[in-house]
């Protein structure tokens, strides 16, 4: 039986077990939307802006591990989606974005709402397709889902001209897939794994350096098991929060530019870095020629291009981290690991010497307290999303993350405006959890329109706005490195956040004391409505510790009492 290209899209999504699609209709994608109207296989969530749709699909993918799906139209619909694609690309999030395109006959004539979409998406997707015939459409859709979710995951963009969605064809959706030029290595080389274990056994101060790959390949519990069995301490990157669990005695915290003192010192002093799904980002390594000076480096990564990209690796292992960890657990008994307890003690001493903390030295609420308090009140019941800036770092530092996929943040691209739509996707994917979005007075305004989507579709998100009337992170850099010239970072004019949220069907609070915050949070969660809790926090608070650009990990600005910079 011959069906239209639009119907093929719907059928393919159904076969791929898509339960929700985030999107926005428009001229070139109308045929697909007509079929969406007629089907019952999945829910369509209409966002208020295409960027919101892509971030929502991204948040959904991060929270559930499934492929997020979004549909947008040609031209501006697609260009609005680009930031979302780039966000997902930098953090390796599996996603399929389907966009409409002007009919084949119009392509190249500067038609209405025509733009070279695949040309734009090429550098910010794992792969993209421009469908030119109806015959290839089923295969392209199948490949899109396969490429997005296999190997190192990433967003895949499928651009479909309008005439293709109208044309009739035979829907022969492949069950098997074989792309001769794409065969990701998923199984680690056993000889290399043994060499790595040997290297670890020969070291005195090994350290697990856990990255976002641990979350993506769902192997946090294997890593916990390995750490527990060997007594090797671990540090997490921003993207790996939740992998080890906040109460794990072997976790020495997050490392990097705003990492804990103990974690950064551990990374500086270790003699064997065991990198598990991390990529030596510049925000993690600090000054490169001082990084890992005393260490041999073992690097496990599914993407061979990550190995040796930034630092020289002594023992590379290419493979899916889950497979490699399973092999490591099976082989580890053949090796005699040392006693690392004195090394762990050194780290614990550092944690006591320079704990991650803050001083209650003003009348205003401390943003760190807000995060910590939210952790005490909601703990494991909440999945935490963030926008980008100071609040993001405080959330990463002070929230007690206990399980993987509890922490949703734009780490690689650092996209302001990510938090709210992502938290909506999280809620849609995990309806039993409380979806909390930590945000700032700057970030929230970048996609604030999605509050309405949250209320319309009953996907409540609790937005905790840490309001300091600044673009805080930029303000902090201006204070430190630009002699406090606050160029365009003072947000004097602000909306009434309570009214803003309530005007879109949510519920708003403005709090200035601890009691008010507790009450607002309890009330917001109980109301089961999308909420804004605007917390007036200490304006001049800085994120510390901080490794300034161009400095080594052991050269941190540390928190000092009474230091108001």
């Amino acid at each position, binding site marked *: 039986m011959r069906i239209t290209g639009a119907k093929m899209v719907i059928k393919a999504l159904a076969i791929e077990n898509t339960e929700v699609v985030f999107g926005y209709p428009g001229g070139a994608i109308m045929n697909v939307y007509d079929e969406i109207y007629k089907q019952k296989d999945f829910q369509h969530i209409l966002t208020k802006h295409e960027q919101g749709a892509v971030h929502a699909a991204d948040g959904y993918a991060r929270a559930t591990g499934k492929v997020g799906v979004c549909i947008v139209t040609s031209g501006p619909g697609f260009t609005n989606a680009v930031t979302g694609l780039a966000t997902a690309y930098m953090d390796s999030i599996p996603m399929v974005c389907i966009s409409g395109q002007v009919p084949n006959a119009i392509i190249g004539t500067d038609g209405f709402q025509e733009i070279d979409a695949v*040309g734009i998406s*090429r550098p910010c997707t794992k792969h993209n397709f421009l469908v*030119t015939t109806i015959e290839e459409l089923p295969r392209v859709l199948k490949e899109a889902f396969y490429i997005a979710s296999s190997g190192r995951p990433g967003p895949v963009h499928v651009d479909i001209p309008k005439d293709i969605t109208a044309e009739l064809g035979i829907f022969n959706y492949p069950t098997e897939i074989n792309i001769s*030029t794409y065969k990701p290595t998923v199984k680690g080389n056993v000889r290399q794994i043994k060499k790595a274990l040997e290297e670890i056994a020969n070291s005195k101060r090994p350290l697990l350096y856990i990255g976002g790959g641990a979350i993506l390949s769902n192997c946090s519990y294997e890593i916990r098991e390995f750490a527990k069995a060997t007594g090797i301490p671990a540090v997490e990157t921003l993207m790996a929060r939740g992998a080890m669990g906040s109460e794990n005695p072997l976790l020495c915290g997050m490392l990097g530019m705003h990492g804990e003192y103990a974690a950064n010192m551990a990374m500086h002093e270790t003699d064997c870095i065991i990198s598990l799904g991390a990529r030596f980002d510049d925000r993690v390594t600090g000054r*490169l020629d001082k990084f890992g*000076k005393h260490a041999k480096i073992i690097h496990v990564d599914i993407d061979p291009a990550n190995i040796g990209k930034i630092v*020289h690796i002594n023992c590379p292992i290419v493979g899916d981290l889950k497979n490699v960890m399973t092999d490591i657990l099976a082989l580890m008994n053949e090796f005699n690991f040392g006693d690392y307890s004195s090394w762990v003690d050194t780290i614990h001493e550092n944690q006591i010497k320079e704990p991650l903390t803050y001083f209650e030295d003003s009348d205003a609420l401390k943003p760190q307290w807000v995060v910590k308090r939210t952790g005490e009140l909601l703990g494991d019941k909440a999945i935490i999303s963030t926008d980008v800036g100071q609040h993001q770092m405080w959330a990463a530092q002070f929230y007690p993350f206990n399980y993987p996929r509890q922490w949703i943040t734009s780490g690689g691209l650092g996209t302001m405006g990510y938090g709210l739509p992502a938290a909506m996707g999280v809620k849609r994917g995990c309806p039993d959890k409380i979806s909390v979005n930590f945000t700032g007075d700057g970030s929230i305004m970048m996609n604030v329109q999605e509050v309405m989507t949250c209320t319309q579709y009953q996907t409540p998100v609790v937005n905790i706005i840490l309001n300091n009337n600044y673009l805080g992170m930029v303000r902090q850099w201006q204070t430190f490195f630009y002699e406090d010239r606050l160029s365009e970072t003072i947000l004097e004019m602000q909306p009434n956040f309570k009214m803003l949220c309530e005007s879109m069907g949510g519920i708003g609070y403005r709090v200035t004391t601890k009691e008010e915050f507790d009450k607002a949070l309890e009330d917001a969660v109980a109301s089961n409505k999308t909420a804004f809790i605007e917390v007036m926090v200490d304006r001049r608070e800085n994120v510390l510790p901080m490794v300034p650009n161009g400095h080594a990990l052991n050269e941190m600005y540390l928190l000092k009492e009474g230091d108001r910079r």
Partner: protein
Amino acid sequence: MKSAQDFYNTAEKREIISVIVQNEDSVLSRISNLFSARGYNIDSLTVAPVPNSEYSRFTIVTVGSARTIDQIVKQLNKLIPVLKVIEHKNCIEKDTVLVKLPIGQNLSDIEVIVKAYNGSIQHITDDAIIISATNDPKRIMDFIKVIQAFHPIEIVRSGVVSIER
């Protein structure tokens, strides 16, 4: 112990890379985008279909440190339509040049020089003479230098193709 910085500071070298790719519309831009997006050099790039197959072959001449070359190869391999990437270690390279010279010069001098560089006279009209030579790229550069004495009107190079010995 080797630090990260040592790895950075390796000397630049010239490298010839062949890339076998699936024949599809956008593959040329995928490859050239990759080079420009990541700041890699392209000294020369040629592309043509591989006979009797669904693949095409790119020959790319580039310059970079060991780390850069390593990244170029890995990043190329990551592109979905790329079948394989060959870093040539021991290969024969050939480059072709076409030169248009004004007529009225000593034809036999030109012929001798062209022959010396393994080339020939291709075409003569009443106002111009076209010569060509195919040789390894270094010899072609020499040839272009020598031929300057005859005031060339136009010089066209093909780019390097290469095959492993």
